């Protein structure tokens, strides 16, 4: 790309003086090149993937984060999984999965499954996987997702019966595809403790599309296609995949640009992606993302909140509505994120079954743009005297490096109207996590990444009476509707219900969602297939990629 | 001024006759100035000097007279901020070659150094590189002036070490400087100078840092350098005794000029210049004050000897604690001492003899670890600070180093008033000022000096002020720890005089500590000689110095060079006799 090189040179010239000595010192090694050794594979064209993800643990019981789950998706089998291009789950290594009674969910495994180490993969492994998950209940683990699982039973080698606590749980199949769902080898994994990564790798306890051949935590993983995988997703297009773990996004970007990395996925900075869009050696591939950003209001401590001196629910609502009116989502998405995030007008992100955009029409100018006049009249009608002082908190270290810019812009947007006086504050994440649930922050930033790709995961944790936000939002109708959708068997009826919930919450504005993260992969010109796996399942599968 | 360039007197030693026309070095109209913060200052101003082969020329003067600068010029060793004018013509030992050092290029200068002229410095510990063996350092000079094999260099190093009197030279050649005593180090420095057989050695205060007994040995060695090696010596010194001991001819410098130059015997016998006369007059001589001491002893009231002593030490022991559970160092080992009211006790000893430690213990600055020490009726061994405090107001102390006796940030008046304020005799400086002025006048300092800062006073003035401070509380006991050892002789003479006057007038008892027998003799009623933490001899000056009984005292006395060449020659004989007894 011409402009990059040119401005790079300009920069180089400006700094040549400082670098002159380094030049002299290093000139001796100038001739050689490291590209020769980057190809280590023998068959096909191996692909190198770069990422800034972090792996906590390869053991499903010991991790509950995107980086670890990304690896598990490649190497462990699931009972239920999402096929390419769809957010909805189907049996993966299972032949069938269904409710055999309201509280019994029965899964039949395919016959003759084997682990990469040669062990047979049977229902006993499945029972083992879920039992140990519950038993270990690691503080870092996802066991709490199995809130509805009572017990697991393996009547024969290919049959697993899940006994559930509440009946007709429509979310349970989805949960089997979530971080709590990977099936592990009972001969390798410990039944009552998190198993160290190296033991897993040494035990070759893999049965997903790939098996790991070389593992250096958070540094380098080498994958090789596992021929014994007979599940939903089929055989990988590429035999060998290497994944390099980066700490600095800019290094990943440079290596991508230099061709040392074929696929960069999660997370280049918006500046980098914007820059690479104009680079003809690489392609920027985008897909819908499950990550959302929203402002949470604490119903007790926000302006006119229930515990404030001038408590007034109507005025409090007006304040939230005015905020919703004033936020310019396009400006944030463009200026701060350069299109790597897109405007979000609902609580359920675009791409999921049942997602609508209630906030687009209800607030602002009705087209998704802000409307200061409308905000002004909303406040005036409720009898709120402006400017309203709003203490707004964000975390500077948990939701990416751009949070500061994001919130500086939001502050600016709110204040520009003259209706708000925003005190922007930031707090380091651990303290932030404690403070936000202790009613310290009247309004604050949060983000969400789903456990499974179902609208339920964007509603249940947030808008029930007892929720993850702990913001004292309490709407009986919404509460009942959410509980209702989870047990509604008819997909259409359930979708209707989900749409209704979104409308209802949009009227209350427990939170103001404003951004949805797109999944962006930057791939070399000759790499195909990224588009196929950047779907609403939010699982990035290396198997879809191929290098021509 | 008129006597600046006295024609050198005739050859003092018959042996030097044939070379009389030749000069090893000839300095003509030398002037040197330095760039300093305060602008340019001139250190040497129109100096003419000549040294003949095999002659010892002593350049004498007080600090700042320019003598060291003159000597450094001969080797071209002046610092960068110096500017030189005039000529220093240096000949080699054979007299076949001549150079003007001032005009030489650095490379030529390097060739001359070591071969034609070498230097012996004041502080032998500082001029020996601590991380190389002495053999290596001696060979270094050889290697700098031509190819010398390691083996040959070593052999020559051993040879020269033997010649300067280092025993077991073959083994010790591989040792490091810190393994030698101070006197041996100076011998090694001299060996380094001699190894290239230069025609001239410049010795800059070669014995000042050494104890008097060691000094005598080094002076002997230098004499042998002249006699055995035939090397001329330029001896820079402030000590007239050293001059009398060693010099053939003497040049007296004052304010950058040579005020008088003459043969040694002539100069001591018949000084011409006013300054030379004054300088010689200032040098304390043993026996000078015998009459005065006797008169004082006669004037004591009856029963004086039985009066309660001001200080009484019985079997006093002071041990400095060791580190890391190492045994301590016993500085004082079983000393008995008494000082009666109004009496001056002189405490003499060489470095490390424990004399200062005793003074500090009496003042309560160093804890007593054994025996008994009663000061003004208070037992210091095991005394608590509360018990010592009242005693302090009755003791005065005058310290050795005039540069640090006063807090540099406070005026002299502040310093002198300090004891008055601390002891509650005055509330603040203003209240104390009248007494301060009185004290300053008592030590013959103008009142106005009270407003000056310590660095604005000369060393002698500071010691007077220090005396004023010591006397501020009208103490019954004054401890003077080497009060004059850092001063030039002329200044020392006046301070000592003042001291004697004040003592007579105020009648305080005094412990006068010094390494210099002559100085102690001048003031003390009784003298105690300290050697390795023990008193070896005690008595009146007449007794101790006139007829010493202890061998150490005898040696000490014989080692002290007297400022008279004739007498000193006799002393030397005596010292040689004492040594042979060992």
């Amino acid at each position, binding site marked *: 790309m011409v402009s990059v090189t040119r401005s790079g040179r300009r920069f180089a010239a400006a700094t040549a003086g400082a670098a002159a000595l380094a030049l002299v010192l290093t000139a001796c090694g100038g001739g050689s090149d490291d590209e020769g050794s980057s190809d280590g594979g023998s068959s096909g064209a191996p692909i190198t993937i770069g990422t800034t993800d972090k792996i906590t643990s390869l053991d499903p019981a010991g991790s509950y984060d995107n980086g670890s789950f990304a690896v598990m998706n490649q190497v462990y089998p699931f009972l239920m999984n999402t096929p390419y291009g769809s957010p909805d789950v189907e049996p993966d290594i299972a032949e069938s999965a269904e409710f055999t009674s309201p509280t019994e969910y029965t899964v039949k495994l395919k016959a003759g499954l084997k682990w990469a180490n040669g062990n047979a993969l049977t229902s006993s492994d499945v029972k083992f996987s879920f039992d140990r998950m519950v038993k270990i209940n690691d503080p870092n683990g996802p066991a709490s997702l199995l809130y509805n699982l009572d017990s697991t039973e393996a009547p024969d080698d290919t049959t697993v019966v899940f006994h559930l606590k509440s009946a007709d749980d429509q979310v349970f199949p989805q949960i089997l595809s979530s971080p709590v769902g990977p099936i592990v080898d009972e001969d390798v994994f410990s039944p009552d403790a998190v198993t160290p990564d190296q033991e897993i790798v040494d035990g070759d306890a893999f049965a997903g599309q790939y098996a790991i051949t070389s593992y250096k935590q958070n540094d380098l993983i080498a994958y090789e296609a596992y021929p014994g995988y007979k599940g939903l997703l089929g055989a990988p297009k590429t035999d060998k995949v290497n994944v390099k773990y980066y700490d600095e996004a800019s290094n990943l970007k440079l290596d991508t640009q230099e061709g040392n990395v074929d696929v960069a996925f999660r997370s280049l900075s918006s500046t980098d992606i914007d820059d690479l869009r104009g680079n003809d050696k690489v392609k920027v591939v985008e897909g819908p993302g499950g990550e959302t950003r929203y402002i949470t209001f604490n119903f007790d401590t926000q302006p006119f909140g229930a515990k404030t001196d001038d408590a007034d629910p109507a005025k409090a609502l007006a304040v939230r509505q005015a905020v919703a009116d004033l936020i310019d989502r396009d400006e944030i998405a463009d200026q701060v994120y350069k299109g790597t995030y897109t405007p979000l007008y609902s609580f359920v992100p675009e791409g999921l079954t049942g997602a609508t955009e209630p906030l687009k029409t209800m607030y602002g100018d009705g087209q998704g743009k802000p409307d200061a006049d409308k905000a002004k009249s909303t406040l005036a009608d409720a009898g709120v005297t402006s400017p309203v002082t709003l203490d707004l908190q964000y975390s500077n270290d948990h939701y990416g490096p751009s949070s500061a810019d994001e919130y*500086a812009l939001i502050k600016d947007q709110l204040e520009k109207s003259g209706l708000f006086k925003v005190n922007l504050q930031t707090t380091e994440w651990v303290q932030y996590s404690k403070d936000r649930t202790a009613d310290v922050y009247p309004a604050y930033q949060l983000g969400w990444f789903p456990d499974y790709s179902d609208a339920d995961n964007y509603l249940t944790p947030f808008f029930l009476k007892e929720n993850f936000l702990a913001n004292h939002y309490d709407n009986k109708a919404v509460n009942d509707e959410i509980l209702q959708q989870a047990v509604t068997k008819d997909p259409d009826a359930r979708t209707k219900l989900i749409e209704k919930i979104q409308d209802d919450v949009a009227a209350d504005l427990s939170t103001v969602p404003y951004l949805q993260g797109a999944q962006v992969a930057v791939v070399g010109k000759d790499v195909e297939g990224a588009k196929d796996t950047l779907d609403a399942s939010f699982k990035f599968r290396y198997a879809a990629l191929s290098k021509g | 001024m008129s006597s600046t360039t006295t024609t050198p007197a005739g050859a003092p030693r018959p042996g030097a006759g044939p070379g009389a026309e030749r000069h090893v070095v000839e300095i003509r109209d030398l002037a040197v100035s330095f760039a300093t913060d305060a602008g340019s200052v001139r250190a040497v101003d129109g100096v003419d000097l000549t040294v003949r082969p095999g002659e010892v020329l002593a350049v004498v003067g007080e600090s700042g007279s320019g003598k060291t600068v003159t000597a450094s010029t001969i080797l071209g060793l002046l610092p960068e901020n110096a500017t030189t004018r005039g000529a220093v013509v240096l000949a080699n030992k054979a007299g076949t070659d001549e150079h003007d050092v001032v005009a030489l290029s650095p490379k030529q200068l390097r060739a001359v150094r070591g071969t034609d002229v070498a230097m012996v410095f004041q502080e032998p510990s500082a001029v020996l590189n601590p991380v190389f063996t002495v053999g290596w350092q001696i060979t270094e000079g050889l290697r700098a002036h031509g190819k010398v094999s390691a083996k040959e260099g070593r052999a020559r190093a051993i040879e020269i070490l033997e010649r300067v009197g280092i025993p077991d030279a073959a083994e010790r050649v591989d040792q490091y400087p810190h393994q030698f005593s101070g006197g041996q180090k100076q011998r090694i420095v001299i060996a380094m100078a001699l190894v290239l057989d230069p025609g001239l050695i410049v010795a800059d205060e070669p014995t000042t840092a050494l104890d008097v007994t060691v000094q005598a040995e080094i002076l002997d060695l230098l004499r042998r350098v002249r006699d055995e090696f035939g090397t001329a010596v330029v001896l820079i010194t402030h000590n007239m005794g050293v001059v009398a001991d060693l010099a053939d001819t003497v040049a007296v410098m004052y304010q950058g000029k040579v005020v008088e130059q003459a043969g040694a015997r002539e100069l001591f016998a018949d000084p011409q210049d006013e300054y030379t006369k004054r300088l010689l007059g200032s040098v304390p001589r043993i026996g000078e004050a015998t009459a005065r001491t006797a008169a004082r002893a006669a004037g004591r009231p009856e029963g004086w000897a039985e009066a309660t002593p001001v200080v009484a030490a019985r079997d006093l022991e002071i041990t400095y604690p060791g580190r890391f559970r190492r045994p301590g160092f016993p500085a004082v080992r079983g000393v008995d001492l008494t000082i009666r009211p109004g009496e001056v006790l002189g405490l003499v000893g060489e470095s490390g003899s424990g004399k200062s430690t005793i003074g500090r213990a009496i003042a309560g600055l160093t804890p007593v670890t054994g025996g008994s020490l009663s000061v003004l009726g208070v037992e210091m061994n095991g005394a608590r600070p509360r018990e010592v405090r009242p005693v302090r107001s009755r003791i005065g102390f005058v310290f050795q180093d005039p540069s*640090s006796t006063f807090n540099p940030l406070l005026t002299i008046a502040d310093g002198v008033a300090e004891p008055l304020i601390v002891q509650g005799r005055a509330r603040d400086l203003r209240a104390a000022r009248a007494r301060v002025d009185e004290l300053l006048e008592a030590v013959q300092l103008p009142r106005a000096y009270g407003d000056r800062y310590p660095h604005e006073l000369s060393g002698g003035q500071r010691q007077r002020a220090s005396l004023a*401070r010591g006397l501020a509380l009208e103490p019954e006991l004054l401890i003077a720890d080497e009060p004059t050892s850092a001063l030039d002789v002329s200044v020392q003479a006046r301070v000592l005089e003042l001291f004697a006057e004040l003592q007579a007038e105020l009648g305080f008892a005094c412990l006068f500590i010094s390494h210099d027998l002559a100085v102690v003799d001048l003031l003390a009623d009784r003298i105690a000689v300290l050697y390795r933490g023990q008193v070896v001899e005690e008595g009146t000056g007449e007794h101790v110095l006139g007829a010493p009984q202890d061998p150490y005292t005898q040696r000490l006395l014989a080692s002290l060079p007297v400022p008279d060449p004739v007498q000193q020659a006799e002393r030397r004989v005596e010292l040689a006799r004492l040594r042979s007894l060992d």
Partner: protein
Amino acid sequence: MSDTTLAPALPPRPSLWSRLPVVSHLRQSVGLQRFMLVAGLVITGIFLVVAVLAPVLAPYGYSQLRTETAAFGAQQAPSGDHWLGTTVGGYDVLSRVIWGAQTAALVIVVAIVASIFLGILIGLVSGYFGGWIDRVLVVVCDAIYAFPSLLLAILAAIVISGGKSSLWGGILAAALSITVVFIPQYFRVIRAEVVRIKTEAYIDAARVIGSPHRRIMVRHVLRNSTRTLPLIVTLNASEAILTLAGLGFLGFGIEPTAAAEWGYDLNKAIADVSSGIWWTALFPGLAIVLAVLGITLVGESLNDLADPRLRSRRASKQVAGDVASTSVAVQGNVVVDVTDPGAPVADPVRDVDEREGRA
């Protein structure tokens, strides 16, 4: 003899102004050393002026994103409106650089004042009384001193900040984090000085006359042990800038809406650099380099001038000067022994040397 009748006139005592630390040093310096000192003073002066006048000099506020009419836009190249362009967050680079000087200056001042107070206090007590308190303090300070300072500052930042982001909260957190690093340094320097001064005769003199400890400590020890402070302060000031920048770079510093901070801006600019957007990184980086360079030049010059071995003097062109002033006359004038340039002066900087150059 004749010296008692009249006090000879002293050379006029230099004015208070010319006795001030830096001023007196400037007067002493010559040639290259003077050049370095002057260059350092000029750069440092500019830095301070910019820091004080930031509200006047900066075209925009440090957290300003738009004018009355329009937003600045992010990552705009240098132009008439934004001489140095805008950052990824849409701030004006020039303004951030200028305001950053103010932040740096505030942090330096707070950090140094705090560490001087605490360091002097414990250094004085420890050095003066000695004993087991001294030994414990020495071991503790040595332990802290030996630990990588940036990591120490990060630890301190986590404890102290607790997530406050207001201007003063951020500055105090950063400054106190740096203070934790500095205290051992001041402790060591002051303690070493105190231990040295304790052996000076005037302390013994004060003890002999029965001065109480507090009087000796305050009147004699304290005042004399602080002479090396200007030097350490300058060297520490440059270190403070680097530590602050390091903290900011690693994300433990001050937030952009609270104050402008160079290290933070550099951190944010990393991605820009690899995308050909050079102006967001270059200017904060240069600001750090220049500020540290200026202050270090001053500090090093002070060090050289304080140390007689390192101080250079110019030789005069001709033999000149007044003889009498150099010699100890019979009247006993001030001694200036020109061959030995000054009494041995301690090298207080060595302590600082060891630690310098972090980050």
